[in-house]
């Protein structure tokens, strides 16, 4: 709760800092703020508190996911630098929007009432609509913003319709009460059942859209590609982490297994399989790294969906821990990937694989960092991504979804193909005229990349630090 308050206040305060356009001041201040909030966040570890009449609950689950969200934001921020130094007039506003969206994310991971879920999603999304189009003069950015906005709004409608039906069937928005109402049907409940089920499925679809689960993923590649890289990174990490935490909370607390399993599980499983397939196979054919990363983010949604399918009805244990670890490893790796891609794209004005040619010679650090992150995303041991997959798959095997895991394993084999391509380009291809210059990197960015690589390896070597905390 403290982090929500701090973020909101500072976000507002930030708006007044707009008179100082120097990023030299703003960036450290922002990082300091986020670092501080991150620390404050962990003060809540171990306690369970409720706010707003129980509409928000701060417990270990939410603290942990808030931690990931804030950490991601913290390491992501240095990459805004180039963008901002280009003479952006409304520097502080963007930072404020970021901070506000973080509030939305935190609400998503700690909601206990569908209203908070809705608000969280909207706070996050509306900020993202703006940020996606923040490169105002760039048609691609415009297009991304409009596409994201139109489809997002449409699916907000779907989500809300689902909520409304659920409300109609159970008479409540509180997660535990929904669960209770479903488990202890009041007289006449039978006639409401279609409404309940349709509501659940619509909510599933609504959230599925936000986490870009297939077949509701169509927006993702286009929007990620058009959005300025920095914000695309934001979307693919923070939005996804918060989205999955929210998804898990919804399934665990509102749709518990007892009654609902037969309803949403097949759908979820089908979505999972489809997402894995489309994400991985789609990424193979891409030529733009950003677009590849978009498909990659779809595929990772697929892996995370496995953890949801391997649902154990609790916010702890294999499934929740799997999502936690996976999100962390994924976020860390993805931030580094987008970070490097952004730096290279800014310097070399190209986003295809060949733009990375010879990066190992010009910028060993960038190459190394991107390599680590690609290996992590591919799930190669020694990186966090491996244990992410490992825990998720373990959770699924434990619950008997062996076929699903085998499919996922096959899909991660496919994923190696496209994750290796940047590495090949960086290390094994020679430079050409556009790629033989050193890409400028600031100290903060270098530090962030090193930190991310270190974190990835740390997670990959000592997964026990994070695994099983929930």
């Amino acid at each position, binding site marked *: 709760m403290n982090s929500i308050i701090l973020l909101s206040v500072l976000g507002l305060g930030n708006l007044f800092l707009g008179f100082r356009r120097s990023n030299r001041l703003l960036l450290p201040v922002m990082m300091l703020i986020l670092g501080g909030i991150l620390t404050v966040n962990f003060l809540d570890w171990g306690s369970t508190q409720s706010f707003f009449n129980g509409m928000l609950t701060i417990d270990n689950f939410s603290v942990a996911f808030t931690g990931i969200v804030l950490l991601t934001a913290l390491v992501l921020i240095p990459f805004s630098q180039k963008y901002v130094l280009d003479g952006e007039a409304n520097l502080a506003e963007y930072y404020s929007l970021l901070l506000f969206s973080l509030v939305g994310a935190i609400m998503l991971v700690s909601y206990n009432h569908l209203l908070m879920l809705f608000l969280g999603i909207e706070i996050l999304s*509306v900020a993202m*609509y703006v940020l996606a189009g923040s490169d105002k003069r760039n048609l691609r950015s415009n297009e991304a913003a*409009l*596409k994201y906005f139109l489809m997002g709004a*449409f699916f907000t*409608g779907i989500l809300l*319709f689902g909520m*409304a039906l659920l409300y*109609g069937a159970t008479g409540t928005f509180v997660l535990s009460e929904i669960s209770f109402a479903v488990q202890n049907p009041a007289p006449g409940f039978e006639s409401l059942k279609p409404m309940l089920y349709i509501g659940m499925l619509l909510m599933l679809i609504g959230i599925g859209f936000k986490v870009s689960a297939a077949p509701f993923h169509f927006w993702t590649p286009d929007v990620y590609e058009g959005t300025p890289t920095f914000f695309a990174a934001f979307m693919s990490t923070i939005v996804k982490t918060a989205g999955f935490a929210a998804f898990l909370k919804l399934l665990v607390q509102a749709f518990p297994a007892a009654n609902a399993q037969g309803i949403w599980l097949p759908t979820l499983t089908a979505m999972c399989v489809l997402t894995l397939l489309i994400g991985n196979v789609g990424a193979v054919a891409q030529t733009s790294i950003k677009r590849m990363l978009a498909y990659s983010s779809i595929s990772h949604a697929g892996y995370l969906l496995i953890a949801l399918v391997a649902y154990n009805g609790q916010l702890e244990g294999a499934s929740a821990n799997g999502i936690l670890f996976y999100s962390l490893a994924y976020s860390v790796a993805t931030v580094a990937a987008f970070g490097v891609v952004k730096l290279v794209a800014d310097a070399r004005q190209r986003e295809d694989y060949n733009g990375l040619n010879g990066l190992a010679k010009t910028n060993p650090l960038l190459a190394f960092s991107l390599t680590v992150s690609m290996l992590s995303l591919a799930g190669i041991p020694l990186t966090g991504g491996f244990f992410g997959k490992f825990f998720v798959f373990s959770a699924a095997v434990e619950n008997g979804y062996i076929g699903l895991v085998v499919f996922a394993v096959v899909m991660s084999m496919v994923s190696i193909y496209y994750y290796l391509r940047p590495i090949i380009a960086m290390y094994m291809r020679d430079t050409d005229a556009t790629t033989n210059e050193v890409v400028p990197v600031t100290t903060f960015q270098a530090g962030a990349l090193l930190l991310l690589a270190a974190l990835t390896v740390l997670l990959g070597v000592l997964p026990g630090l994070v695994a099983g905390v929930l």
Partner: protein
Amino acid sequence: MNPNIPEVIQTVPLQYYVFFAAALFSIGVLGVLTRRNAIIIFMCVELMLNAVNVLLTAFSAYRADPNGQIFVFFIMAVAAAEVAVGLAIIVMIYRNLQNTDVNLLNRLKF
């Protein structure tokens, strides 16, 4: 029959509200699918949201539970925010393209 609910509300059965909202929602969806002007699509989305509002209000009234109606306020507020952002985006597009036809937006594909 819930005694806490005024009789005048119960004169229209709940199902009617549900059907009405569903119809409204479907019209919204169809509008979104068929129209090509960004603004009209956006209005159709608003139509969907209003269908939700109707539904929530009806349920809220029938259950004599204020939660639903409070939710409606939030939806309206958020929708307003969305309108602000959405129209801004559309305006931005219009400035660059002199048009708001969504099918012109196909630079990002494959």
